[in-house]
Every structure is written in structure tokens, then in C-alpha cells.
């Protein structure tokens, strides 16, 4: 394992302004659009009993974190199409090391995105929430992002350059919709909400809310997210081994 490599790699990407704008612009614009118009005067959300502005902030933080993590796929696709990963294979960096560096980078971009969205919200709207509750919410969202970092890597491993974008959109929109990031699941029949609980994006948002309320049952999301992480992780390693040869 090479800590130095991981550090260089993640800082390199954090300095990539285009990528950061991509993962921050949409959540911030939506934060001001929705948060500003509906939550500016301290309304309370009836489902979560949190201030509406907090719910919106967490939703947008989750959203930005998800984009940041998934966007790792473009990076990997580029590295594969250019042959940079072949160059890396003739170094001591192991396959596991390479993949870990990608997860760490995705997680670094995600936490950066979460922190910026939360900071902007706190500075602009002054929502009522303790520092501890914010911290728990941030950690909750951040842990919830792990499966998305892995999905991003999987897309990166499978997609040809021309398919990376559509695949990204399908995963991103599908998971957002199924996980209730866009349309509240309450408007669907109860069974839809039940089914949605196996989708990782459902918990991405819920974990933030649970953190903000400093309560909730952590066991179910832990099991769901670990199961997804293990499944994606195994798939990624299988794929990486097959990908070794130049075809």
C-alpha cells in the first residue's frame, strides 16, 4: 500500500476545478432555489421533524456527494482508455492498492462536497441545529456514499469512453429516483417505500436525517450498505483481475 500515492492522487483530483464545479454547482443552486423559497423562515418538515432548510441541505449534500463519488468513473475510464492503468501495472502498486486509491479519492471528493454544501447553508440560512447534530449528519451521509464510490469504480471498469456518460446518468437518475432523493416516497404505496429500503441511495439521505436528529435505528442501514459494499467490492475485484490483459 502506498500512502504517498493515495495522497498525490486525491490531491490531484481535488485540484481539478472542473470536476469540483460539476459536483457542487447543481446542489448549491438547488439549495438556494428550494431552501431559500421554502425553508428560509424556519418551517418544520412533518415527516422528519427537522427544520425544512436542514432537510434540504442534507438532501443537496447527499446529492453532491453522490455526484462526486460517481464521477470517479470518468477518471477511471480515461485512465483505461489512455493506458495509464497499464503503466501503473508495471509498478509495485497492487490492484487492491489502485482500487483503494480510487475509493479514497472518491470519498475525499465526497466529504469536500458535503462540507461545502453544509457550510454554505449554515452561513446563508443559519439553520437551528447543534454542531454535534451537523457532525453526525455529515458522517452519516459520508458513510452512505461508500456504495456510490464503488458503483463509480464499477462504471469506470466496464464502460467504454463513449458509454461512461450515459451509464453515469442512468445510475445517477435511477438511484436518485428509487432512493427518494427527488420525489418523496410517501406519495407512493407503502410497498414502494419498503422496496426502496434496499436501494443504497435511500439510506444516503436517511442517514443524514438520522444523524441530524441524533436517533434512529442504525442496524438496517448498516446491513444494507455493508451488503452493497461487499457485493460491489467483489464484483470490482473480479473485473479487475479479468481486465489485466491487453485485448
Amino acid at each position, binding site marked *: 500500500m*502506498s500512502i*504517498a*500515492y493515495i*495522497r*498525490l*492522487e486525491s490531491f*490531484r483530483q481535488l485540484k*481539478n476545478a472542473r470536476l469540483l464545479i460539476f459536483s457542487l454547482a447543481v446542489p448549491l443552486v438547488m439549495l438556494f432555489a428550494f431552501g431559500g423559497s421554502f425553508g428560509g423562515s424556519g418551517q418544520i418538515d412533518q415527516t422528519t421533524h427537522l427544520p425544512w432548510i436542514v432537510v434540504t441541505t442534507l438532501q443537496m449534500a447527499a446529492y453532491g456527494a453522490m455526484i462526486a463519488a460517481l464521477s470517479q468513473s470518468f477518471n477511471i475510464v*480515461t*485512465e483505461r482508455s*489512455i*493506458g*495509464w492503468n*497499464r*503503466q*501503473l*501495472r*508495471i*509498478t*509495485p*502498486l497492487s490492484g487492491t*492498492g489502485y482500487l483503494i486509491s480510487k475509493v479514497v479519492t472518491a470519498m475525499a471528493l465526497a466529504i469536500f462536497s458535503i462540507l461545502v454544501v453544509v457550510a454554505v447553508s449554515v452561513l446563508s440560512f443559519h439553520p437551528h441545529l447543534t454542531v454535534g447534530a451537523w457532525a453526525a449528519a455529515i458522517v452519516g451521509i459520508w458513510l452512505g456514499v461508500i456504495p456510490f464510490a464503488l458503483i463509480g469504480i464499477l462504471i469506470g471498469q466496464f464502460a467504454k469512453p463513449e458509454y461512461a456518460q450515459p451509464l453515469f446518468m442512468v445510475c445517477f437518475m435511477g438511484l436518485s429516483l428509487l432512493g427518494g432523493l427527488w420525489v418523496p416516497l410517501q406519495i407512493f404505496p407503502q410497498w414502494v417505500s419498503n422496496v426502496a429500503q434496499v436501494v443504497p441511495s435511500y439510506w444516503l439521505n436517511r442517514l443524514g436525517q438520522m444523524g441530524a436528529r441524533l436517533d434512529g435505528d442504525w442496524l438496517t442501514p448498516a446491513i444494507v450498505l455493508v451488503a452493497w459494499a461487499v457485493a460491489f467490492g467483489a464484483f470490482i475485484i473480479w473485473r479487475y483481475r479479468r481486465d*489485466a*490483459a*491487453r*485485448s
Partner: protein
Amino acid sequence: MNENPAIQLKNLSKRFGSLTAVDGVDLTIAPGEVVALLGPNGAGKSTTIDLALGLANPTTGTASLFGDDPRTAIVEGRVGAMLQGGALMPTMTVAQSVALVASVHRHPLSVAEALERARCTEIAKQKVSKLSGGQMQRARFAVAVVSNPDLLILDEPTAAMDVEARRLFWQSMQEFTAAGRTVVFATHYLDEADTYADRIVMLAAGRVVADGTPAEVKAVVSGRRIRVTFDRTWDAALAAALENMPGVRSVEARGSQATIVTDDSDATLRSLLVAYDDAHDIEVTAHTMDDAFLALTSKSTSSTTSSRTSNATPATTPANGVRA
């Protein structure tokens, strides 16, 4: 001292579906040798390199570097390579690329030294996407040498370089080999192989078809081709007479026209014109490397091995240049 060969390939084959890219290659390269892998496109050079580095799994046979599994040698930082389709990330600078690769090695050179060895100091701060073809290859060379390797494998390192860039590149390469290190480079330029290698291994259709010093291999590859038309009908006696003329390697006939491959076209022509006054429409052309490859490949179906000790001798026919 470590007496293990730098590279040892034993009965190495690689098939992709019905295509056999590498077909039973046996090759031993000793530490300190500078070896050119010469062959046309599709000869199996790149696949052989991938197999030697453990980047692809062989269908049959084994590859070892310094007596070990290729991966072990790579992890020890003993191997550097410039691969085909192994480029640098366009958004990074040259120095960043070198630093990133250096960060995963255990005992790398300093970034500045790797850049200097590859003549990259002036382009260190440039973005990879802004480099010319020659600069790009130099940057890749810097990445390949940053681990301070004992063995350097270069797949067509001077592709996309102009003459000056090529000269500069080989100059930095010679500093590297002067220190007694092993270099294997793939090329399809005979002159490059001739000038910079002390041993040439020719590959065609996935097989080693010749292996020897540049002089020996050049003798197989070079030569002239005389095309001549006779007024008489072709017969075996004529063919035998032509084959016995000085310098002649092979004779082929089509109708009343013959194609003679010769090592000494002047001597052959003198005898030919003296012996046959009906010989006309004579055409002398250089025997190209492609011709040599073709000849060697078509006659090499029974050849299996080629090693340093049984070198290709300056051959009387191309087939004899291929030693089993």
C-alpha cells in the same frame, strides 16, 4: 552475483480466439544485453512484451524476469517499461506524472534525476496534453526510469519521433545501458536495431525467425532481388544452374521470368550475362525487410527455438538463417 537471466521465456504462446499472437517463443536474455525485437506489425512483439511483464497470461509456457515471477521483479522495482498504449494522463504535468509513479516505488530516483536522465528537465512543468510526439516519448521514458530499473523494456520507443528527437532519445538510452543494464526494445526499423542493439531477435507471425548479432541478422534481411526474363522455356537444369551462380540464395520462376535473391548482385549479374545471352529485361531491386520477413515466415513453420548459442549464420538461403 545474480546469474539469473534478465528475461527467460520458455515455450511461450498466446492465443486470442483463433488468432495465435505468440507461438512457442523461447528466449533468454542475459543481464547487460541490449536486444532489439525486430518485426513487422502484427509479428507478436507487443504481446510478447505483455507476457514477459506478466500483463497477460500465456496460453502455454512461462515467463520469468531475473529468475522470478515477473510481478516479483516489478514489485522490487527492477523493471521499467514504455508500453504501447501506455500513455500519461493529459491533465498532469510531466513532473507530476513522474512523481506519481515514483510515489509507488520503494527506492525511486529523485524526480529531478529521472527527468534529467530522460532529457525532460525543460518540459517538466508542461501539461502532458501539450507535448509533441517526441517530448511525449521522453516523458514516458522518464516515468519508465524513475524506479532506477535493472531492466528496461521499450515497445517502439521512437514511434512518432522525428530524426532529431530519435537521436536525442537514443543518446539518453546509451547513458542508461553504459551502466551495464539490460534493455529490450521493439522496433520495426532495421537501422535502429542495427545501430543500438548488440543482439537482434527477429519475430514474425509470433515466432522467433532469426536471432543473432546485427551483422548476422542483416545478412539474412538484406540482399538484392534480380528479376530476369529468358527466351527459352524454364526447366530444372536452368534453375539448378542459376542457383549455383555466385551469391545466389534462392531462385523462383514464373513462366519464363525468374526472380533471383542474391547476397552479391554484382557477381551474380556478371555470371548471368556471360552465361545467358537471351537474358533480358533485367531489374535489380533491394530485398526489403518485408521480403525477408515473408521468406523467413513461410519457411519457418518447422522452426521452434532459437538461442544465443545457435546463431543465425550469414545464410546461403533464408531458410538456413532460421536455426532450430
